[in-house]
C-alpha cells in the first residue's frame, strides 16, 4: 500500500476516524452536528474532512496545519469511514493539506436539482446520525 506525504496510507480504512471541521455555529446544536454541516460544496462536489480522531488536541493540531486556520474553529464532528461508506458515499484521501480527504459520490441530477438536494440531505442525515460532536474552539 502506498504512503502519502503525511505518512498515512493512500487508502482510507473502514475503521479510520474522519473529522469535519465546523466553522459555523449554526452547523451544530448542543448535542450533534446538523446534516447541513456535511452537505457537499457545489463547486467541488465533495465534502472536506481530515483523517484524525475525536481527540480535541489532535483536532486542533490538524486544524492549525490547514489553510483554514485563519478562521475560528467552532466545533468538529467525527465519524468512521465505514459509516460513510455504509451511507453510500466514499472517503478518498486527497493531500495536501496533510491528512486531508474528501467525501465523494454525492448524487448530482442535472435535470432535477431539487430531487438531487433531497437525496443529498438524506445522505447527510445518515452521516450526522453516526457522527460525534467534539467540543473544540480555536482561537
Amino acid at each position, binding site marked *: 500500500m502506498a504512503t502519502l506525504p503525511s505518512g498515512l496510507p493512500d487508502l482510507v480504512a473502514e475503521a479510520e476516524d474522519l473529522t469535519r471541521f465546523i466553522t459555523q455555529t*449554526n452547523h451544530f446544536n448542543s448535542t450533534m452536528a446538523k446534516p*447541513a454541516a456535511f452537505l457537499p460544496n457545489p463547486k467541488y462536489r465533495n465534502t472536506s474532512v481530515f483523517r484524525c480522531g475525536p481527540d480535541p488536541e489532535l483536532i486542533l493540531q490538524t486544524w492549525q496545519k490547514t489553510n483554514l486556520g485563519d478562521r475560528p474553529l467552532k466545533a468538529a464532528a467525527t465519524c468512521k469511514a465505514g459509516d460513510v461508506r455504509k451511507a453510500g458515499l466514499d472517503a478518498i484521501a486527497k493531500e495536501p493539506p496533510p491528512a486531508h480527504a474528501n467525501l465523494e459520490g454525492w448524487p448530482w441530477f442535472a435535470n432535477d436539482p431539487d430531487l438531487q438536494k433531497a437525496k443529498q440531505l438524506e445522505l447527510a442525515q445518515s452521516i450526522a446520525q453516526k457522527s460525534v460532536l467534539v467540543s473544540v474552539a480555536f482561537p
Partner: protein
Amino acid sequence: MFGYAVAQGNVRGSTAVSPEAQTIRDAVTAVVERAEQSQALFGAKAASISQLQAMVNECSQPNWDGEDAVAINPIAVFLTEQFVRALPDAIPLPEFAPEPDGSITLDWIPSHHRMFSVSVGASARLAYAWLDGSDKGHAVARFEGDRVPKRIIDGIAAIMNHGYVTLRTA
C-alpha cells in the same frame, strides 16, 4: 390595542352576575385568550425569524465557510420566512443551518436517530428528507407561500411525536 386592554380589564375585574353579563364575560374571555395565544405565537415566530436573520448576516458573503461556499440566497431567505410564518401553531419551530450552495436547511432534531430536514433554496420546490431509526427517505414538495405542504407537516409531526401523526391541518 386599546380595545384589547379594555377587554382584559373587563375579564379580570368584572363582578357581573346576570346571565347576559356572564355570556358577555365568557365571550370576552375567549377573545382575550385567543389574542394572548396569538401574541405568544407571534413572539416565538418573530424570535425564530430573528435567529434566521442573524445567520444570514454571518453568511451573506461568498466563502463564509472558508471552503468557497455560495452566499445565502435572498430568495431562500424570503421563502424561509414565509415557511416559518405558514407553519401550523402545533408544529415546533425549526433550527436553521446554512448550506454551501446558498440554500437554508430547516431542521427538526428530537434525537440523534430521528430528524426531519427541509432545504429551502431559490425554487418553490422544497427538498426534504427524514430519518427515523432505520427508516429514512427523501422527496420534493411544492410550497405555495401561504400553506406548508401537508406531506411535510405530517412528516415533521411523525418525527416529533415519535411516529404518531396527531396534527390536524386546515
